């Protein structure tokens, strides 16, 4: 994990003022390095989702710049996005839901099926291709959502509190699977969360954001190589969590004082 040098995307002085008068972000500087697992950690309402949507191009910054390493052009097909809700089409089967990004790009369904099945197998849903979303549990729906984001083999995967609504057991399982996927696929992940524990468990690097308007308060590297049940109960993990909690506490105070 030493190729973490060149940023894949850089945000400089990014600000976002909504029409309602809410200043969600102000002077946000952020580099996302190639191949890293980066978490954006911050209190609810600090502008994490806004920042992620700006990276995805779903929202325009009011100020500042977003620069991609390959110098602009169409990144659309290179981004995978996972929302807090599974956001599946209820009228379509699991297979059709995962096919969506390819279909919108003009792909032929029959030709895409092997790739879809491979992606479904990756998230452990090979047997559920013909099921409808309502027949699945919350965790399984989220897996479909992740498969849909992965099916285009994106260079960067953006995830906005994807597991926040799930129970703890399911969340732990999905955390493990996500780490495994990240290692296997060697992609860049930007993971938004308000959970200290989740961010420490998953990330190589945590960027802590201040209260609204969101800005980078501090950043923290997590140098653990193994992410498993043992790590979760280790003193090392607890230590990182304490440091991250303190950083979050400082960030919230800083925001309140400003």
């Amino acid at each position, binding site marked *: 994990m030493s190729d973490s040098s060149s940023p894949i995307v850089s945000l400089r002085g990014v600000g976002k003022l909504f029409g309602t008068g809410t200043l969600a972000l102000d002077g946000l500087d952020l580099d996302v390095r190639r191949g890293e697992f980066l978490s954006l950690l911050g209190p609810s309402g600090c502008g994490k989702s806004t920042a992620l949507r700006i990276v995805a191009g779903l929202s325009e910054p009011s100020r500042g710049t977003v620069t991609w390493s390959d110098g602009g052009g169409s990144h659309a*097909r290179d981004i995978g996005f996972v929302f807090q809700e599974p956001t599946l089409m209820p*009228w379509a089967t699991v297979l059709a839901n995962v096919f969506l990004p390819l279909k*919108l790009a003009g792909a032929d369904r029959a030709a895409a099926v092997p790739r879809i099945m491979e992606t479904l197998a990756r998230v452990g849903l090979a047997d559920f291709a013909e099921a409808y979303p*309502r027949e699945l549990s919350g965790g399984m729906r989220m897996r479909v959502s992740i498969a849909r984001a992965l099916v285009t083999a994106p260079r960067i995967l953006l995830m906005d509190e994807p597991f926040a609504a799930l129970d703890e057991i399911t969340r732990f399982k999905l955390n493990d699977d996500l780490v495994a996927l990240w290692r296997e696929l060697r992609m860049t992940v930007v993971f938004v969360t308000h959970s200290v524990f989740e961010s420490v468990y998953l990330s190589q690097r945590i960027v802590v954001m201040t209260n609204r308007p969101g800005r980078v308060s501090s950043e923290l590297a997590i140098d653990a190589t193994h992410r498993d049940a043992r790590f979760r109960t280790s003193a090392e993990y607890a230590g990182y969590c304490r440091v991250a909690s303190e950083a979050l506490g400082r960030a919230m105070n800083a925001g309140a004082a400003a």
Partner: protein
Amino acid sequence: MSGGSPQESGRERREQALRILAPAGVLALGVVLWDLIVRVNGIPPYILPSPGLVLSTLVSDWPVLWTSLLATLETTMEGLALAVIGGIGLAVLFNQSRLIEHSLYPYAVILQVTPVVAVAPLLLIYLPQQAAVLACAWIVAFFPVLANTTLGLSSVDHNLADLFRLYGASRWQVLRELKLPAALPQMLAGIRIAGGLSLIGAVVAEIAAGSAGAGSGLAYRIAESGYRLNIPRMFAALLLLSLAGIVIFALLSWLTHLVLHRWHESAIARET
């Protein structure tokens, strides 16, 4: 642990039976009461025919009534089909262009709030009778399709819409792959209402046309029988008319179930 499932299915069967037997019992009771009232008071058939007489009239007048029923059903179905095409088409247009929506929506509302009984005589002056009757069926049936579809098209999940944008979907793809399927439940609800209204529109226009005399639908038969004091036939035609309404509603409900049962909450029978 001696299996709750037979017990469960037994209760379900009883529930099912109740749902059929209860209204059937009410019907039987009503018919018996009706018959009793007619007998005991010796009411003549030109005031109130007995249920038996209505049934035998239904049988004896069947050729006339059947042709009339077909005529009314044809109008109803054509009106419904035009309402579905027009309602969905206009809703899609509204969804694509604010200008068109703002320009036309008020007139759709005016068409809806003006009582069709009042419009029918006017239409009968300007249009050939069959066209006028069809126009009435269309006028009352098309608004629920338009209103429901419009609502459905604009209540798409925002995140899903963002996802389509992220993957560079064209306007046409968004409409076909996202908005139309998402609007399906509301669209079908609108169509279910429109089925009944189309029948009402056809009946109203036939009644209005009845005085002009050239009609052949069931409602025309009712009006005609009224003038001739053929009350048993009036009842028989009325009976057919409400049966037709029930069948239309049942068919459209079945269609809704067929389309939605795999995915939509409204079509799922919950197991407890």
